[in-house]
């Protein structure tokens, strides 16, 4: 595949069982104009790394909101935005990170779950 048809995705990962510090891991995946950022995470999970931890339920653009993340510095719903050629993906800020892109979303913490659109 030609390079321009690829996307570089850097994901901030953490597994407290192995290492207490988070680190960035880079993945290179096919760029599809009509794929969302959440589709990209699912692609990585499926084809490249089955241990990637992230949430996603409705996959339909802002119905359940559980996938909310920080992408390229902006808090957004990855199911609602198309993927980009370069993405830096981090967990939702302001919440304790439990693993990879999973933050503590227990009910008392859910109040702030409102993406900046």
């Amino acid at each position, binding site marked *: 595949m030609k390079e321009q048809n690829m996307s570089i995705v850097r994901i901030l990962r953490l*597994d*407290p*069982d192995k290492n207490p510090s988070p680190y960035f891991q880079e993945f290179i995946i096919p760029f599809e104009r*009509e794929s*969302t950022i959440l589709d990209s995470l699912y692609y990585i*999970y*499926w084809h490249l790394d*089955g*241990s*990637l*931890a*992230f*949430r*996603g*339920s*409705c*996959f*339909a*653009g*802002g*119905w*359940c*909101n*559980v996938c909310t993340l920080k992408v390229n510095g902006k808090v957004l*719903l990855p*199911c*609602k*935005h*198309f993927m980009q050629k370069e993405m830096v993906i981090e967990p939702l800020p302001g919440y304790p990170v*439990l*693993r*990879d892109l*999973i933050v503590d*979303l*227990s*009910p008392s913490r*859910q109040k702030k779950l409102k993406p900046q659109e």
Partner: protein
Amino acid sequence: MLKAEPFDLDVLVIGGGGAGAMAALWAAKEVPRVGLAEKGVFGKSGCTSMGAFSICAAFGYADPADNSRKHLEDTIKGGQFLNDQELVDLYTREAPERIQELISYGARFDMENGRLKQVMMPGHSFPRACHYDRRTGPMIMGTLARKLKKTPSIRRFAEVMVVDLLLQPEGPHYAVGIRWADSSFIIFRAKAIVVTTGGGAQIYKNNTTSLDNTGDGISLMFQAGVELSDMEFVQFYPTTVCSPKLPGLGPTATAFLRIRTGARLYNALGEDFMDKKMPGWRFRATRDLLSQAIYKEIIEGRGTPKGGVYMDITHLPPEKIEKEYAIGSYYKKLLQVGVDISKRPIETKVSAHFFMGGARVNARGETNVPGLYAGGEATAGYHGANRLGGNALSEILVSGSRAGKFAALRAKAVSEEGKGEEALEGRLEALKERIARWRARAGGLRPVEGKKRVQDLMWEKAGVVRQGSKMREGLDSLRALKEEAERSLMICPERRYNRELFDAFEFFHMIRVSSLILLAALTREESRGAHYREDFPLPDNARWLVNILLKRSEDEGVKARTEKVKLTHLSPEK
């Protein structure tokens, strides 16, 4: 880890969508110890929050001639007389009360002259669809989640997947869950269990449901000896998003074009195929008829390059389009994703949407296993062979509340604790070994790959248009896939938030549910509602006004039987 003390509960509800929330709330009115286990984030799992638009109930606000009897007639005609008429009677009578209950919890609906606004939906003979913008489902789920939070006697177990049920006719029931957070087991011991885990449209590659909708509860109940009914009936949604993608508007966003103003539907040759088949179809054609028509255009080679058909409202004046689609900023939201529906058609496709089949329950929501109840999409009977649009969101409120209430009443009446612990230990050991085997393999079938194979296979072998020989091939393929999975399924070893662990269980549920659908669909040698067979293209009331019931046999096989539908409220016209 396995010796963990069980959580002792009066009622355990499994499944955290709308039906589960209602079941928990109603159970909590009767008993002090209610648990709600859900696979997803609290208040976010399941498909309730994906319900875009309509929730139907015969308030008669828009037309005073409407009443619950009329709603019953429409629902049974839509279900092609396979509904359990007693359940439909209860549902249509109680639906307005349950919506009022939601309002008392703070739910908001679009209003007109100080009353709930009600609009027409296809298949209904009166305008009875209430709505809140195009966010009715999220509004309902949000309302229920807030109410749950305010009910301290309901203990919530979020991101817990129940993977085994140990049902004891005499004693308490056990449910074994796994916490996603750290893969640990959690044991529930409950005097009654309510299953509200929804359907399983994820078994099809094109579907409109949330990713967690994998038939878990139906599969678990079957395995535990619950009789299932109507599994052959899977509703396909005729006009879902195909191209362009419309992120943010929901998978059924395109249907709004058809429902609101009536759209033209045409194939790649430009033929208005619905007008040819059924003049005046726009408010008459139910989802099953439309799905079959669209599917046929596609498989007979008249579809668009992306595998859909065109839907078009460009013949309408732009002012009308802007006005009609101002609701929920629909027109504007489409413009934001680069689609001007007044200027161009969009491509739309068919997707699996809803299971009419599930656990067979009575008016109390009770299955054939004492103390095991079910509500919502995991049940059969309310919608017969085909569900009308707008009936799901109101049905889950009714069936969920009834199941919760009667489960609690049973819990009150029985007093037994502690029995069956030895059997449970055995089950836990088996589960632990199974997971260890998956984790130990260095190579093999990954759960997500297995799920994809089920989805492709079901789409091809048991999709909108079915045929005996293809379905038999499908059953053989599923059997082979299951053997391969038992031999070689592998998951990554991570302990925390391991997606593959849940995917593995879901994959096996998908295989089981798919096999049951194929078995039922092979048994029904006619076409009715959502079940269309090319080799038996016509309905046959003389022979097939029956429900197909499936139950696990002693030798781990399936026992199928049929039972005549009781036409207590309405009979087909001769």
